[in-house]
Each structure stands twice: as structure tokens, then as C-alpha cells.
């Protein structure tokens, strides 16, 4: 059997997730042992239109990018969304909170805002444009999880991505809970798989992996009350990576 061909494409993002692939160091050579990377603009000059697995980094913010993504989808057997920008729209979705996108443009471009080439549309995650076969969550992705997912796909197995929240991994690490230290941590409603990296470093979970399937936002409200905080403290944290996504907090 010939090695599957992998192509990596980037859209609107910081390219930090591709960087994590580079950061695999020696393991990257292992990956290259199991698959041929045929296109990867950030790291190599080769280009190719034939591939089995397309890895998509970044979110979709322009019509022309939607077209390009659809073309990639039509060529690839498996399409992977890599990182928060691709899986949930990531930080780029913050701009969707402005009801009027013109306002966004004005804020950055001032009087030039109406030039036609500045056309932008609300940020979309990859699966809002095409079908996605596998998700690698996180901002940036977790290298261990990425390699696990790649091995699964190369083996024809569906990777097991946690359905449970970050607290599970946080507790397994033996961390004291950050809420007790005054931080508004989104751990209880965000999908695990990162090894509770942020809470383990004393930094609240800000939700880069997206919500679990069935987050209990009512409970979150209760906790806000318990710690004498305001619901806005929670909302403003949830908006960072969760703009215009379910669940929304009312009240």
C-alpha cells in the first residue's frame, strides 16, 4: 500500500498550529515515515493537487476562501480541522459579536474601510462551510493529541476525543481549583484533551477546545453566585473562544 498523501493548508489564523507540527521535532520524521506530506506552504516549497488527507488550519473569513476550501474538500478523502480557528472559529469569531461588520472595519481602517478589497464576512469554522471528518481541538493544538489522531486515521480508526470537561484532567493532575483563587475558569464546560494545560499553569481555562456536548450553563450561574461574582464575569470569558455559539448565557 502506498503512503497516504497529506497536504496542509492555512486560512485566517496565526499559524501556531502548524508550528506545533514543526514542534514535533523527531516525531515529525516518524509522521513522514507513515505518510507523505505533499504540500505545506509554511515549511516547504513543493506544491501538489493530489492528496488523501487535507489538514485545514484557520477560519474562513472571505468568500474566496470558502471557494478554495470547497475545492480542497472535493479533492481530499479525509479532511481534518486543525486548531480552534478551524474547529470552532477561534478567536477570529470575536468580530462576529459586532452586529455591524462595517463598524469593525472602520475601527481598524478608519476612512479606508469601504474599499472593496477589504470585503470580509462573519468568521466561519471549517465545518460551517464543508464537512469535517476529524477535529484536532485547541489553540494551539496539543502535539500529543495531534499525533494520536494522525496515527488513528492512518490506521483507519476513529480517534476517541474526550466528551468530558477539562476538570477531569485538572483533577487527575492534582491541581487546586482556580475558582478558589478568584479566577473564572471555564474548565467545567470545556472539552478536555489538553491535559488541563492552562489550569496546571495557574491560568484559567479560556475555552479554546470548545464546549462539551452538553454543558450545564445553569450550574455555571450558580457557581458565579457562590463566589460572589457577576454573570458578566462569566460571559466575558465565554465570549473569547465561544462567540455566537451555543450555549449562550442569558440574564
Amino acid at each position, binding site marked *: 500500500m502506498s503512503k497516504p498523501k497529506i497536504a496542509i493548508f492555512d486560512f485566517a489564523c496565526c499559524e501556531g498550529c502548524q508550528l506545533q507540527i514543526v514542534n514535533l521535532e523527531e516525531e515529525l520524521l516518524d509522521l513522514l*515515515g507513515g505518510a507523505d506530506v505533499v504540500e505545506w506552504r509554511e515549511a516547504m516549497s513543493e506544491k501538489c493537487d493530489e492528496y488523501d488527507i487535507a489538514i485545514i488550519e484557520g477560519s474562513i473569513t472571505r468568500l474566496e476562501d470558502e471557494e478554495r476550501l470547497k475545492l480542497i474538500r472535493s479533492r481530499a478523502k479525509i479532511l481534518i480541522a486543525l486548531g480552534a480557528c478551524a474547529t470552532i472559529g477561534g478567536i477570529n469569531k470575536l468580530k462576529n459579536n459586532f452586529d455591524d461588520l462595517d463598524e469593525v472595519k472602520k475601527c481598524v481602517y478608519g476612512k479606508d474601510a469601504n474599499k472593496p478589497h477589504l470585503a470580509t464576512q462573519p468568521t466561519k469554522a471549517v465545518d460551517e462551510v464543508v464537512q469535517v471528518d476529524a477535529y484536532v481541538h485547541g489553540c494551539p493544538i496539543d502535539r500529543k493529541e495531534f499525533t494520536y489522531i494522525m*496515527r488513528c486515521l492512518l490506521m483507519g480508526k476513529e480517534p476517541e476525543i474526550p*466528551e*468530558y470537561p477539562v*476538570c477531569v484532567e485538572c*483533577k487527575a493532575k492534582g491541581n*487546586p481549583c482556580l475558582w478558589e483563587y478568584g479566577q473564572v475558569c471555564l474548565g467545567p464546560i470545556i472539552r478536555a484533551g489538553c491535559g488541563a494545560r492552562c489550569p496546571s499553569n495557574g491560568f484559567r481555562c479560556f475555552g479554546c477546545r470548545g464546549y462539551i*456536548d452538553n*454543558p*450545564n450553563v445553569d450550574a455555571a450561574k450558580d457557581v458565579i453566585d457562590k463566589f460572589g461574582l457577576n454573570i458578566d464575569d462569566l460571559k466575558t470569558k465565554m465570549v473569547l473562544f465561544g462567540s455566537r455559539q451555543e450555549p449562550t448565557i442569558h440574564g
Partner: protein
Amino acid sequence: MSVKKIAKKDFVEFVETLIRKERVFGVQAKGDRFDFAPLESAQDLRLDYDVTLQPPKKFFQPPAEVLMTFEVGGGYQSQYDDEPFVLLGVHPYDMVAINQMDELFSQDNYDTHYMTRRNNATIVACDVAKPSENVFASSMGTAVVKSGYDVLLTDIGDSYVCEAATEKGEKLMAAAKKAVPADDAALKSREAVWAKNKKGLNRHELKCDPAYLPKLLAKAYKHPVWEERAKTCFSCGSCNQVCPTCYCFNVQDDVNWDMKTGKRERAWDGCLLDGFTKVAGEHEFRKQRADRFRHRIYRKGMYVPEKIGGQIACVGCGRCVAACLPDIANPVAVYNRLIDDLGIG
């Protein structure tokens, strides 16, 4: 077996020699909390701790462990963590929990992975010197412990009474050259500590004898408390993860890059987590939060006791009380609520 007394400063010295000889884990400060960690200096050992963040179960059933390796088509090879170690500072309630786990992992089907670690351990238990904010060991009858440990330490002021309970314990304490046989006064002081703890480790008071809990639960299955509490349950499983008597696990395979060899791992799981009972085809047997919430309380108060001869599987460490953000996990609060509604007897 012998009961000795050792001055605190001599004990530090003893621990120092121990560290040089053996793999030692002990309770240490972690920020303003405490936890078990590899002990590098006797100075770091904190036997005056209130409660550890994680229960000592992680030494016998780690958060993740390799059960076996395999070669595709070539068979499976058991993997064991087979290095002896000393565990310093296990509180009585945690010791009771370990005793229960020993029973659960050895009865019916003997779990060689758990038991290898367990048999490799020399456990130095120590009586509680400072009650934690949520402990209720007194209510559960686990404030003092009589078995399971190799050595039991009791802080009686400027020295420890140390009782070696097993051969292993005797051997360990033999290195404590400055220990002297415990005199009557020391033993009396120890009795006093026990008497105090039997009553004093009780920040939440259970309104019945724990032995009554299975009977209480037998009539509480349809009680509204499950719905009421679970309404604000995150299904975060924190109550499972921090509990010294929770041991459910998940098993997963992973291959190496050669795609031919790999390992099978098990990792902590939790019955509160969404998907715990979900089978292929998306059917989930305890789909409702309330069902899962109830299951945990029943498991502690009824199911496990049925399996291991009556001992309630909540030892009153209070960790879940502290870990539960919406403040619903406290077993005493649940039991007391049921007692209020359903009465005793």
C-alpha cells in the same frame, strides 16, 4: 509488633536516611495546599497537613497506566510497575479507603496491576493532626484506623508514637536508631489523640450511624433530591476524580508510529461523566445527570458496601465537598436530607 517513640528531630533524620535508600513519597506543601509527591528532603515532609489534594489511590491506580504492550498479530505482554516504595503520611480515612480498594481489586478477579503496586508499598500512616475544612471521618467511623498500614505515626507534641504493624513496618523502623520503646505516657497521649479525632474530625455531621445508610438508600431511589441537586451538576466528575474510593476506569489502545507495536492503557474514569454508559449506536443507560448523581451516592452508600461486607465506601475525607463547584456533591448533605424526609428506621 513494637510500639516506639521518636523525637521529631530524630524522625527527620530517619526520613533523611530513608530517602537515600528508598523511593519515598510523602505529603508536601503545594502552594497553600498539600499533596503526595516524591520526597527529596525530609524537611519537605508535612505530617501536619489537613488533607491532600489527591487521595493516595494514585500510587496504586495511577491516573493513567500501561497495562500491556502488544505487537499486531504477535501477542500481548503484561507490563508492571514493579518498584518498591514508601508512602509517608497516609491519614486514617485514606488508609480505610486503601483497605477497601485492596478488597475490591483482589476479590473475584485478582487485579495483578493494582496488587503489584500495593504489595510493593510500605505505608506509613499518620493520625490527623489538623482537621481539614470538610472532613467528616468521625461520622463515618474512619477517624482512626486499625489495619492496613505498616507503620502508624501519631503526633504527640514533640515526638511521634510509631507503631510497626507488619514485618515490613518493623524493618522500616529498624533504621530509626534513636527510637525508644513507647512509655505509658506516650501511649496515653496517643489514646488522647485518637479519642479527640474520633469526635473531632466532623465538619459535617451525619445524622445516622453509617451502617444504616444502605437501608436508608433502599427507600430513597425515587426521592426528589436527585433531581434537585443534579440540576446544577456540571457532570465534571471532579467528585469521582478526587475520591479515594472511586476506581472506575477506561481502557484505550494506542499504536506506535511503526503501526505494528503499541500499548493498552487504562485511565481514571468517572460515573458522573456524560457518556460513561454510552454504547455504540448512541444509546446511553444513565443519560440524565440525576441518574448519574444518584448512582455515585448509591455506590458509596449501598452497592460497594454490599460487595465488601458492609463498610461504607465513603470514608469522609471531604474532598468531593471541596471539589464540587456548585456545592452539591457533599454526601452528608444528601444523606441528611433523606433522613429528614424519610426518617430513621
